[in-house]
């Protein structure tokens, strides 16, 4: 099989032929069993690649969910003692910002809400939580969705939302539509 023929088949499959070229290719396909077999083989490569790419996408999604799940439950990523300290040491700035934000959040919890109704205090806490997000994302550049290394803070811009859970501000991921349907993260 000539490389040029394979290139023509590939070009048709990717919408890169003119009408004339397509007519010629179709006429050759009608006459040439070897060319038809090559077309099927090329299609198999493409279908196989699609399947492998989908597997990879799903595996990556699963890894991401596991990470989010373990952090959401208060778990620690699996790090050795040395790595853990390296991790903290090399990422001190986001943690410092987060610690400062926690202090602010704690103050916001007690100070302004003693006599206010629950809704107002909840709104105030949401604002604080939003500030925490903003600080982490903007000031600490916490946009580390990829590459996924264990020592990184993992926030995608726009993927977090704040809400109140049991009276306390919390962060969670927004629902993101899956390309093959609408799965919830």
């Amino acid at each position: 099989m000539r490389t040029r023929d394979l290139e023509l088949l590939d070009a048709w499959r990717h919408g890169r032929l003119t009408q004339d070229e397509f007519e010629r290719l179709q006429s050759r396909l009608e006459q040439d069993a070897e060319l038809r077999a090559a077309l099927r083989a090329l299609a198999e490569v493409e279908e196989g690649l699609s399947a492998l790419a989908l597997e990879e996408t799903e595996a990556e999604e699963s890894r991401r969910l596991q990470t989010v799940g373990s952090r959401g439950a208060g778990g620690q990523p699996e790090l050795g003692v040395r790595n853990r300290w390296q991790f903290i040491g090399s990422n001190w700035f986001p943690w410092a910002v987060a610690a400062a934000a926690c202090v602010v959040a704690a103050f916001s919890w007690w100070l302004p809400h003693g006599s206010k109704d629950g809704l107002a205090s909840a709104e105030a806490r949401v604002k604080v939580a939003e500030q925490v997000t903003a600080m982490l994302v903007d000031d600490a550049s916490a946009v580390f969705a990829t590459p996924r290394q264990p020592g990184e803070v993992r926030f995608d811009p726009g993927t977090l939302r704040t809400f109140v859970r049991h009276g306390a501000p919390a962060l969670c991921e927004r629902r993101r539509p899956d390309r093959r349907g609408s799965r919830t993260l």
Partner: protein
Amino acid sequence: MDHPQSSHEAFITLLLRHEPMVRAAIRAVVLRAEDVDEVMQAVSLVAWRKFDSLTDRGGFGRWACVIARHEVLKFKRARARDRFVLNESLVERIMEEGASECALRAARLSLLERCLEKLPAARRQLLLQAYSPGCTTRAMAELLGQSEDSLYQMLRRLRLELKRCVELGLAAEGGEA
């Protein structure tokens, strides 16, 4: 006749085992992955409705490919006005010849994974990215700061390299390329 439950399980098992091969057969004449999904769904439904009439379950793959041929033709008829669509008799011929390649197709798909692993990581990643759901060459070219044409050329070279690798692998295993 089987108990409904065991018939159901047998069907699911056979469908899962043969789906990649049937999809690959469909893809020879249906170009977009999303359209392959649509045809495959129709094939699965028809196969399920007719499953009780299949006496030789060992021939499930070939049987499913025959159903796929009919469903592809229905799909093509609905899109007869599209440009660059192969004529019906040619589609039928390609699918018919492909129905006898089920076993070979399984071997090729398995070899493809090995061939992909032989590629340098960056190229492998590029290919998988290009075939990830919803990705277009144009969007990817923009992301990489390349022209769409040069990205297409690169992807084409890699696809043909993989095809060649699979055929060499088949030949080495004693199959025919």
